[in-house]
């Protein structure tokens, strides 16, 4: 017994000693006053904004902290100037002139000029970044030291919104320049203090930032893959901010008096395309009947009471070109009758594919509702690489995606994915093509909105897909953190953030 007591005491002493040398609290500023630790939903694996490395989400988050752009979305998704103070297009919307902010310096003190913008744009076009496909055939010139002109191959009214993913680097950066990205120089609010790909990046305030030096001394962005560990770190104070919090965790976090919670409308919509090229789903009557058979309202209320809302358009309300449509009514009896009348083959299962376990309960609920009227579904949860391969090959019947609209302009969603040439969902409608071409080419905002409204109506009425839910991102943060931007795109900005020491 004595031995047991001695062992137990020794164990307690070891734990106490170890806990004494731990840095468990972001809240106690391991880097000194004004430092915070945050953890998002994806790792940051690369900081080269012009390459395909590291995927898009992590780089878009970090890109806005260390580099500047010509344009950026404001917290509600409206496109505003970043380096560009104003811009205009010619009548054909093939030539866009951007005037640059004066007196902007990189973090090493050198001046940012039109030459840097030109070199960066060419670097983006010359690389393998998926963002380069927004500018196929485009060219750039600098007409004056404070002005650049971008010429597009085709009329492009949405160019300013597409430029939110174009980050500006010094003109000296080579196409492959691993050395530069070990200590990158940018003109954003922060500089990189240290970076371990996929693990942690520590940012330090850039005292040469044109928008004023940030109040925070450092921002540490940590990757914590497991949601339970991430939320525990938030509650213990090791982390100050977490976003993308699942709905079922919010109640506990709201009860914590040290934390604040807010859900922000995003540009994402749960999108369930039908493959209109397969015989079973060729007619709009069948597609609409299937939509009618699913009680999305109840599913959303059950699974996403705080981070979801019934969608009423193919794009979210935060997106330019959003146009609300008449909601579909849940009516399983009518759905079954319409399917029978249309000659739907109840014996052949439809293949429903999705890629992320996060979406499993939602898709299972959809399958459950469809099975009530006798529609058989093979629910296929696929690995990302397989999902993409099959998606592009149209090797599916129903495809689930949480689809965002980059740049908050319907051009990068409706205009890109619903044309006959895009071949993304087997649907082809020349009238829709014409509307989308008009919306993408005129600089008249009213005309663009009208065209997108008509296009949305066709997509909705023909049930190119089911559009069940608009998505909100839940941010939860320690009350000491104030002033950061809760962003609709899921990329919080810390340029104006501060720490309340009281």
């Amino acid at each position, binding site marked *: 017994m004595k031995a047991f007591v001695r062992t137990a005491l020794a164990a307690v002493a070891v734990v106490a000693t170890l806990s004494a040398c731990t840095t468990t609290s972001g809240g106690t500023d391991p880097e000194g006053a004004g430092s915070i630790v945050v953890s998002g939903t994806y790792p940051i694996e690369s900081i080269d904004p012009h390459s395909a*490395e590291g995927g898009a989400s992590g780089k878009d988050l970090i890109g806005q902290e260390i580099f500047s752009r010509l344009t950026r979305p404001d917290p509600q998704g409206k496109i505003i100037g970043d380096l560009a103070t104003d811009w205009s297009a010619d009548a054909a919307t093939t030539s866009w002139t951007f005037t640059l902010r004066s007196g902007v310096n990189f973090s090493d003190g050198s001046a940012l000029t039109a030459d840097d913008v030109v070199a960066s744009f060419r670097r983006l076009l010359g690389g393998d970044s*998926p963002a380069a496909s927004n500018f196929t055939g485009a060219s750039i010139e600098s007409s004056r030291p404070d002005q650049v002109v971008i010429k597009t191959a085709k009329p492009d009214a949405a160019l300013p919104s597409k430029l939110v993913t174009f980050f500006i680097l010094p003109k000296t950066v080579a196409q492959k320049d691993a050395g530069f990205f070990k200590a990158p120089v940018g003109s954003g609010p922060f500089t990189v203090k240290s970076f371990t790909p996929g693990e942690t990046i520590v940012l330090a305030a850039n005292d040469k930032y044109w928008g004023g030096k940030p109040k925070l001394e450092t921002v540490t962005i940590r990757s914590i893959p497991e949601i339970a*560990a991430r939320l525990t*770190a938030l509650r*213990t104070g090791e982390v100050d901010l977490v976003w993308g919090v699942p709905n079922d965790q919010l109640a506990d976090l709201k009860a914590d008096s040290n934390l604040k919670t807010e859900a922000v409308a995003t540009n994402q919509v749960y999108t369930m395309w039908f493959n209109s090229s397969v015989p079973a789903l060729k007619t709009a009557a069948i597609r609409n009947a299937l939509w009618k058979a699913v009680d999305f309202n109840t599913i959303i209320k059950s699974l996403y009471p705080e981070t979801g809302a019934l969608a009423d358009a193919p794009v979210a309300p935060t997106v330019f070109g959003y146009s609300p449509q008449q909601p579909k009514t849940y009516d399983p009896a009518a759905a079954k009758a319409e399917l029978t009348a249309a000659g739907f083959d109840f014996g052949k299962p439809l293949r429903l594919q999705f890629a992320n376990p996060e979406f499993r309960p939602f898709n299972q609920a959809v399958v459950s509702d469809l099975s009530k009227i006798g529609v058989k579904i093979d629910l296929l949860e696929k690995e*990302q690489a397989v999902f993409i391969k099959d998606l592009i090959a149209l090797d599916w019947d129903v495809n689930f995606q949480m689809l965002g609209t980059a740049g908050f302009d319907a051009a990068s969603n409706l205009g890109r994915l619903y044309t006959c040439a895009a071949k993304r969902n087997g649907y082809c409608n020349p009238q829709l093509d014409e509307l989308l071409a008009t919306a993408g080419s005129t600089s008249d905002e009213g005309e663009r909105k009208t065209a997108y409204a008509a296009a949305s109506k066709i997509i909705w009425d023909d049930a190119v897909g089911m559009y069940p839910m608009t998505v909100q991102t839940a941010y939860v943060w320690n009350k000491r953190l104030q002033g950061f931007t809760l962003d609709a795109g899921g990329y919080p900005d810390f340029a104006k953030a501060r720490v309340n020491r009281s």
Partner: protein
Amino acid sequence: MTRVVLRRLASSVIVMWGAASLIFLIIRLAPGGPALVLLGPDAQPEEVAELTTRLGLDRSLPEQYLAYLWDVSRLDFGDSYRLGQPAMEAVLTRLPASLELAAAAAVIAVCVGLVLGLIAGYRRGGVVDRVTSALTIGLQAFPTFWVGIMLILLFALVLRVLPSSGVGTPAHLVLPAVTLSLPFTAIVARLTRSSLVEEMDEPYATTARAKGLTDRQVLIGHALRNSLTPVLTVVALQLGALIGGAVVVENVFAWPGLGSLIVSAVNNRDYAVVQAATLTIAGIIVLLNLLADLATARLDPRIRLGAA
């Protein structure tokens, strides 16, 4: 002994070649290539084709295989498509964290498992034996994922004595190492117990007792050394598994080890990293096996002499 070493070294080279070939083939058999993953769902077919060519993946499989073997023989594993850095550099960045975690878990498992197993075997049928049996079954039955979360909730959230995740201080190592060690501890304890029981029933132990030695003297003087031989082999094998197979623990505790790097590389079809990481782990396992074989030969004269 020299011949034992040489024979084992020769078979190790063959094992490494086999591992290198299997890894090369298996990752390429997986549907969906790196170009698709890098370019994402918006990729146009011509962009995919161009990137595939640039990555050298449009060449025939035998051509790629020969180039790969030639590069691997020079320890050149190529660059990671995903991380934009040499694949081996990414692996070596993560390896220390994996070794640290595996070593800590192994120390805990061996110390606790050996003590529990020896006591249980020595006091066969007693209270300690029965408690140990129940405990070891429990330790193996609980999923690592669940145990990790429970430990985080208890020690990080409720007691607030340890950090919940991450790296940096010795305290960060405690919870992941303990979580990772639990099933391993159970294996070591059960194996030590059964091995000891077997040895204590051997004729040589009975003879020793007949000569007047006490059970404790038989244990310390004879049975203990012999019972450790199988334990040593299993510990060496498990160490390799701990280095590359700790992916669940790494995910739960945000521990930047090789396991999570491999899973991410497989998901992203990052061939270079998958190849570099799995071959590194294969190399470690082969090395540990080699050391275990040599240690066993050293402990057990039958193996040493039989080999000679």
